[in-house]
């Protein structure tokens, strides 16, 4: 249970179309993360799946049933909102049981389900309190608990961790991951934080301006980004790009390094900061001049200027003794090079 299929979904608010034809199949039990910059339509897409908005065209199927016209309550989904949206005038127990009461479930079963969810999320102590008396992390748990008691076919989570501090976010991320492993219910998770996306997802859907750019596993996205946008969006710090001209299968990087590219004409080459290293004296390399050094202890981030090709960022292991303004030479392996054509699509 919990297979969700989107077919050519379009959504327009008044005259402005924000989702431009999305096709997506989410498998049963999968944890799919929608990621993208703000305004890319990821929350809108989630609301369409939830039934809080209706698509302008296209269809949504859950477990083979067309639910495009069905109301939010009739889709068997549960949603965790960014603001948690706990009912402030109800206790935690009332918050959890509200949805079940509305389905006219017997009182004993409601109590059993609430207690079970509370135990699972370790909020049994808080059942008598109101949301105002809870900390951010506790509210988050209650919001998840409210989704769990419904026993939904799929969970929809809209940036659930964005209101938490960094430390708590890490803990809750691990808990969500564990929760998904235990419940093995389909989850759709919306975030703009790529660390969350990379760590949680079975598959990541990268969205930009209402269009899916790529759907793949986290590592495939990292290793084989299908286009320039995905290449630049996934991975931190961002990938370094160089615009080069390919002539008879050869391109020249700034600094004179020659590389083979199976393409002709203008090409953008990409290199992740983690895939650059300090070059040996005789090695083929890119020459640059350091202008900013960020020493993080375990690694050092170097920001450098490449003559005639803008900036380059390198992440090097360990602690380095490099002064600002020092010239460096950066080497790389051809296997780590990403090439994109003039339209921004991956070559090879």
């Amino acid at each position, binding site marked *: 249970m919990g297979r969700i299929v989107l077919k050519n979904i379009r959504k327009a608010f008044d005259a402005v179309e924000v989702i431009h034809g999305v096709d997506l199949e989410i498998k049963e039990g999968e944890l799919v993360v929608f990621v993208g910059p703000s305004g890319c339509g990821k929350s809108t897409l989630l609301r369409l799946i939830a039934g809080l908005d209706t698509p302008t065209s296209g269809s949504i199927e859950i477990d083979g049933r067309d639910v495009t016209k069905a109301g*939010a309550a009739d889709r068997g989904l549960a949603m965790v909102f960014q603001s948690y949206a706990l009912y402030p*005038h109800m206790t935690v127990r009332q918050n959890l049981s509200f949805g079940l009461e509305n389905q006219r479930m017997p009182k004993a079963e409601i109590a059993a389900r609430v207690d079970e969810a509370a135990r699972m999320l370790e909020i049994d102590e808080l059942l008598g309190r109101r949301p105002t008396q809870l900390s951010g992390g506790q509210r988050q748990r209650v919001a998840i608990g409210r989704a769990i008691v419904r026993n939904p076919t799929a969970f929809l989570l809209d940036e659930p961790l964005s209101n938490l501090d960094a430390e708590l976010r890490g803990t809750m991320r691990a808990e969500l991951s564990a929760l998904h492993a235990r419940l093995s219910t389909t989850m759709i998770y919306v975030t703009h934080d790529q660390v969350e996306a990379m760590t949680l997802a079975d598959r990541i859907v990268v969205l930009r301006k209402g269009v899916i750019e790529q759907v793949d596993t986290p590592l495939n996205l990292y290793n084989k980004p299908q286009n320039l946008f995905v290449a630049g969006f996934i991975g931190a710090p961002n990938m370094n790009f160089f615009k080069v001209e390919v002539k008879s299968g050869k391109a020249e990087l700034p600094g004179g390094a020659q590389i083979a590219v199976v393409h002709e004409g203008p090409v953008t080459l990409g290199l992740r900061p983690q895939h650059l290293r300090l070059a040996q004296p005789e090695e083929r390399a890119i020459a640059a001049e350091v202008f900013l050094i960020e020493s993080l202890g375990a690694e050092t981030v170097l920001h450098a200027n490449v003559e005639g090709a803008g900036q380059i960022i390198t992440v090097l292991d360990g602690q380095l003794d490099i002064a600002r303004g020092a010239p460096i030479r950066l080497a790389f392996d051809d296997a780590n090079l990403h090439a994109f054509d003039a339209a921004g699509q991956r070559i090879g």
Partner: protein
Amino acid sequence: MNAVRNFVFARRGRAGKWHWTDIVTWIWLIGGTIIMFGPALWLISSSFKGPAQLAEFPPTLLPYVQEVAKVEGYDAPLPLYQVTQEDGSTRVMAEIRRIGTSAQMVDPANPEERVSVRLTDRQPVREVGLAINNYTDPFLAFDFMRYLGNSVFVTVMATLLTLLTNSMAAFALSKYRFKGRDAVMLLIVATLMVPLSVILVPLYSVVSSVGLLNSLWGVILPTIATPTGVFLLRQYMLTIPDELIEAARMDHASEWQIYWRIILPLAAPALAVLAIFSVVWRWNDFLWPLIVLSRRELYTLQIGLNTYAGELNVQWHYILAMTVVTMIPVVLVFIFLQRFITTGIAGAGIK
């Protein structure tokens, strides 16, 4: 206690000196208190004065009652006066009856001897006291309890219906998107500009044609839809996050349940404010009940009070006393509901 005194008597001037702002502050605050409470206190003080004392000029600050004495040979107690005699000495005498510009008086110690005294030569002997019968007489003679019952019925029903209908309208106007929503809102608010006196005649014919004349429902029903209430509640409901409603919708709540179990409890502070307004409005309503109700047993208190003001004779002492009584429920409502005005329970729980 000390902290309170220090706070109240704190001055801006140093070392016990008065800064000019201290003086202005005190004058301003004391003056403000007199302006605010003066009329109410004057009303309460006057309500305990007898009819004769109310007609006096200059008026006295406190209510007085004339002293009386039981004099042998007379059944009723006689009022006492300080009489100035021809030789300049004074003594206390009781009045038997007034004849023209003089009065027949008697010394309580010597009831046999009657003396004629000019009215200008005597002063009533008075002490501070309360004319309680201003309050008790209306309860006995006047149909106070029935009027009170009518007023309570009208106020309670009108307030409940006002809260219900206005909150439903406000819910729709704040949380649903539909064509013409803003136009409807504008129209409702625009009716604020139409005073009752303008629509009095058409309203009367409507109420008359549906047969609600001389019925308390005829007083209640035309008043329940108030633009102020709809506007007040809508503005408040706009601050209730839409996500709560969406969460409820995901939780299988029907639209009615969303209204009843989410919106209404969260709008409680605004509802309390509207309840206070509504109670005050309906309790003090005069013109509309006066028009609809013409049978005495249906009168509300305000209309009932009006019966004391006859064409030739206004019984101010009863009117004042009953005005004080009619103020009590409004003051009580305000005391109990005012905390809702200041505390908001919504908004918390989000973030």
